């Protein structure tokens, strides 16, 4: 949308060949006229001088009409040019009549029809000026413009009155009509002056600037010429063709130029609507202060010549000017103090908000983290005075462990940055803050400062830590006595000290089962807390679904036998899962335990594994009493059981399903339940599947254990393309880490390449098809996620082993998004570049082995 407009403006701003030709013609005409004025190479001064005016009039007429035609997009602008051309037409007609009289009579009569047209020129031009598109202004501004205009008109009026108007009015010996017409001319000039003032003082679209300045210049020429002409007529010294006529020729040539300068305004391009209007030109505001001194200068001049009888009319005009100037000053000062007050008030308000905000606020210089300003709250948070902080280095407040976070920031990533981060207080203690950053730009839109808003979350962080510690300690402290209780009871129950009476034995059994329940409850609470706090690190590895199911059924087999429930496994598909096996077994044991608990005797609990789209779907179905529809969701919440008596009867903690769902969701899967009262329930959950090459590797390993070495190698060879010899591509924006990685990795078998942005990464992968890709996620601009997403779409990465090397804490959703081919996740916090090197060497080694063996 923008580009064509820009092009258009460019084309329009350079004058076309026609416009240049027109300008040259106007210039040549002026030269011809001037040479005639100087040398009079043709006789007939009066007629010819008048005749020279007419082509200039015609040129202006054509130019303004064409300008009006060029502006179909703006009604006001078109109307302005049309009124201009009408005014010029009137002037043209007047000049033609005057030429006729000049030819006809030696001494042209006065007044004539020509004067009527001359006078209408002033009125029409004034109307035209009122049609110029202007910006709307406030009432006070309008008053100022009006006063300024009045001062200009009265200042000019003083001149006109002194030289022309006054003497003309006082001069006798003419008919009333002749006197009236004589007076009308300088009055017309004053009208033009008012129009000129209106033009210069109001705000017009900047694209009209040249045209309007030319019109103003033309008008000024007209006013000056008229005053001189009027003076000349009064003293009977003027004749047509006098040098003063040059100003008239010039006037109309300038009007013609103005018309030519009008750029086309197409429909929908109204400059009044599309231009970004600037503030009123401040230069225009001193205009009144030029006219006023001229007026006063005149007064002093007159006074010095006629000390006793000053020209009363002039004194009157000048008094009015003085009054106007005073009013204007007063209005300006009022306005100035009002805006200044408003500005100060707003500044005070902002300052108060800044200082008293409940959050800490810092303003930092974008170049180098120098603190420009801080508020009271911030300085209290960090324990320094604002004076100490201003001009100081922001890094001094940063906790050493967080420096890296700031280093990774750039202009693009600052806006919207939000993180829980540590600061250093003056006393060296850590301040936990939730920090939000934004850019502060200057008027030109260039970012200058970084505004940081900091919320103190130390208390919350400490509370979280206390809670974590508390739970951990409680877990441990409860377990220690429970170990003794459970141990003692177990020994008694086991008959180590001899057979117990039946009643005693059943009491002991009750104590044992309830102790076990208590232990489970504690374990479950610890599990779910760890899961919620995100502290559970899933150790993802490829494993067959059937293997996990076999493990789980083995664990619950005893319970099932006791409950006289049969366990059945249906394997529709046996996908290789990419999961943390232990936790999935926990999920299965949980679901199977529940199913067994609620199943009637002699019934069957069925575990089914199959595929659902690109994921594995595992279900556990029982023929139990079922779950009411309104409880289907709540059973996954903590301490929610279908029947509160279940907890006592069935011995569950009420956390089992919550933990199971949490584990599945951490893997990026989903868990749901379908149930019918009296018919039973089926719990379903989905899990991610490892990709093809990993599947082959797993199969290879498994077969290798039973089959021969050669079998295993053949199978390993199948995955050889996944580790084809070639290039290790490191995508890392931190220059020092990037260098360390490439230096560590570069040796004779490995070629390492380093890129710093997502865009370069995608390009380099496409070009060099690296066998191993080490990917940082936090990159300038687009992130590592983008790299994976783009590769997923384009799909050239099937054969590349991906090592995601990041400082981010990835949740299971992130991991799933990043899964592409063989993918491993390595945390920057725990994995050193040396660890990376080891892993890369392993990958390369296994690739070389399989290739070598395959060759022999």
């Amino acid at each position: 949308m923008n580009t064509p407009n820009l092009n258009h403006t460019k084309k329009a701003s350079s004058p076309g060949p026609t416009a240049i030709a027109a300008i040259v013609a106007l210039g040549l005409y002026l030269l011809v006229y001037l040479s005639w004025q100087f040398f009079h190479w043709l006789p007939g001064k009066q007629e010819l001088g008048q005749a020279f005016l007419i082509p200039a009039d015609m040129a202006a007429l054509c130019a303004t009409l064409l300008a009006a035609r060029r502006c179909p997009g703006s009604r006001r602008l078109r109307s302005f040019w049309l009124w201009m051309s009408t005014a010029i037409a009137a002037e043209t007609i007047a000049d033609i009549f005057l030429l006729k009289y000049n030819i006809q009579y030696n001494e042209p009569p006065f007044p004539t029809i020509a004067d009527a047209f001359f006078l209408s020129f002033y009125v029409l031009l004034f109307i035209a000026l009122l049609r110029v598109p202007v910006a709307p202004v406030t009432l006070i501004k309008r008053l100022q413009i009006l006063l300024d205009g009045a001062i200009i008109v009265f200042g000019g009026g003083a001149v006109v009155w002194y030289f022309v108007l006054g003497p003309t009015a006082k001069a006798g010996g003419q008919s009333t009509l002749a006197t009236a017409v004589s007076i009308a001319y300088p009055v017309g000039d004053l009208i033009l002056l008012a129009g000129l003032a209106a033009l210069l003082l109001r705000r017009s679209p900047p694209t009209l600037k040249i045209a309007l300045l030319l019109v103003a210049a033309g008008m000024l020429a007209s006013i000056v010429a008229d005053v001189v002409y009027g003076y000349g007529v009064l003293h009977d010294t003027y004749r047509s063709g006098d040098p003063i006529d040059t100003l008239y020729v010039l006037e109309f040539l300038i009007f013609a130029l103005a018309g030519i300068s009008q750029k086309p305004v197409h429909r929908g391009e109204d400059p009044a609507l599309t231009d970004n209007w600037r503030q009123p030109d401040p230069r225009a505001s001193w205009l009144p202060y030029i006219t006023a001194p001229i007026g006063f200068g005149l007064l002093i001049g007159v006074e010095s010549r006629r000390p006793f009888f000053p020209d009363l009319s002039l004194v009157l005009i000048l008094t009015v000017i003085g009054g106007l100037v005073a009013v204007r000053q007063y209005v300006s000062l009022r306005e100035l103090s009002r805006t200044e007050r408003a500005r100060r008030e707003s500044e005070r308000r902002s300052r108060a908000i800044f200082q008293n905000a409940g959050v800490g606020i810092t303003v930092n210089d974008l170049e180098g983290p120098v603190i420009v300003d801080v508020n009271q709250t911030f300085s209290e948070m960090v324990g320094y005075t604002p004076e100490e902080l201003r001009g100081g280095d922001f890094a001094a407040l940063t906790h050493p462990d967080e420096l890296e976070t700031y280093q990774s920031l750039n202009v693009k990533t600052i806006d919207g940055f939000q993180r829980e981060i540590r600061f250093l207080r003056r006393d060296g203690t850590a301040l936990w803050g939730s920090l939000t950053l934004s850019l502060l730009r200057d008027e030109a839109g260039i970012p200058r400062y970084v505004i940081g808003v900091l919320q103190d979350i130390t208390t919350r962080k400490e509370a979280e830590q206390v809670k974590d510690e508390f739970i951990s300690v409680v877990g441990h402290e409860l377990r220690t006595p429970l170990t003794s209780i459970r141990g003692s009871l177990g020994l008694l129950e086991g008959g180590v000290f001899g057979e117990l009476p039946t009643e005693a034995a059943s009491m002991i059994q009750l104590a044992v089962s309830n102790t076990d329940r208590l232990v489970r409850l504690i374990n479950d609470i610890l599990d779910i807390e760890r899961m919620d706090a995100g502290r559970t690190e899933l150790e993802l590895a490829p494993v067959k679904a059937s293997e996990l199911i076999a493990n789980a059924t083995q664990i619950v087999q005893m319970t099932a036998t006791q409950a006289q429930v049969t366990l059945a496994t249906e394997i529709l598909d046996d996908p290789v899962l990419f999961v943390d096996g232990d936790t999935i077994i926990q999920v299965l044991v949980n679901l199977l335990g529940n199913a067994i608990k609620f199943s009637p005797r002699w019934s069957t609990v069925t575990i089914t594994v199959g595929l659902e789209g690109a994921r594995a779907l595992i279900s556990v179905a029982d023929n139990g009493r079922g779950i009411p529809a309104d409880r289907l969701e709540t059973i996954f919440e903590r301490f929610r059981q279908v029947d509160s008596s279940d907890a006592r009867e069935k011995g569950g903690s009420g956390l089992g399903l919550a933990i199971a769902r949490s584990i599945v969701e951490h893997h990026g899967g989903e868990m749901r339940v379908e149930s019918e009262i009296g018919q039973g329930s089926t719990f379903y959950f989905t899990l991610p599947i490892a990709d093809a090459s990993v599947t082959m590797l797993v199969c290879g390993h498994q077969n290798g254990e039973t089959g021969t070495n050669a079998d295993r190698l053949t199978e390993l060879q199948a995955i050889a393309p996944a580790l084809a010899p070639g290039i290790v591509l490191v995508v890392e924006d931190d220059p020092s880490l990037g260098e360390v990685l490439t230096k560590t990795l570069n040796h004779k078998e490995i070629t390492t390449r380093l890129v710093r942005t997502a865009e370069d990464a995608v390009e380099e992968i496409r070009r060099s098809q690296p066998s191993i890709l080490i990917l940082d996620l936090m990159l300038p601009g687009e992130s590592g996620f983008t790299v994976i997403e783009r590769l997923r779409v384009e799909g050239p990465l099937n054969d590349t082993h991906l090592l995601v090397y990041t400082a981010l804490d990835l949740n299971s959703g992130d991991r799933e998004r990043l899964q592409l081919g063989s993918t491993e996740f390595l945390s920057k916090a725990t994995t050193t570049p040396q660890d990376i090197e080891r892993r890369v060497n392993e990958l390369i080694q296994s690739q070389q082995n399989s290739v070598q063996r395959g060759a022999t």
Partner: protein
Amino acid sequence: MSQRLLLVDDEDAIRTIATISLERIGEWTVVPASSGRAALEAIQDDGPFDAVLMDVMMPELDGPSTLQHMRDGVLPAHVPVIFLTAKIGQAERDRLLSLGASGVIAKPFDPMTLPEELQHILNG
């Protein structure tokens, strides 16, 4: 002759229960020690042992530190050390194994199956 086991735990009750379990259900000869320091002395005075079963959380010298002292030449390298811990979780288990433990048994343990569990670990 039954195998000799050094049992280290600061809790009297647990020492008692584990001793009964290992001696009566299992066929161990148990030498109890109530602290890491006592354990190191027992190795000097009462050794040799065929295995060490040791609590992790103990005042003064905790399980891992005691293990370190033992591995500094006090205890022959081939003698397995198994930890007893109330802290469950894979991370903790891995940490203990990385310190050189042969196995980890979670608290609370079932005294009826403790000897079996221990044997399972020792058999690898």
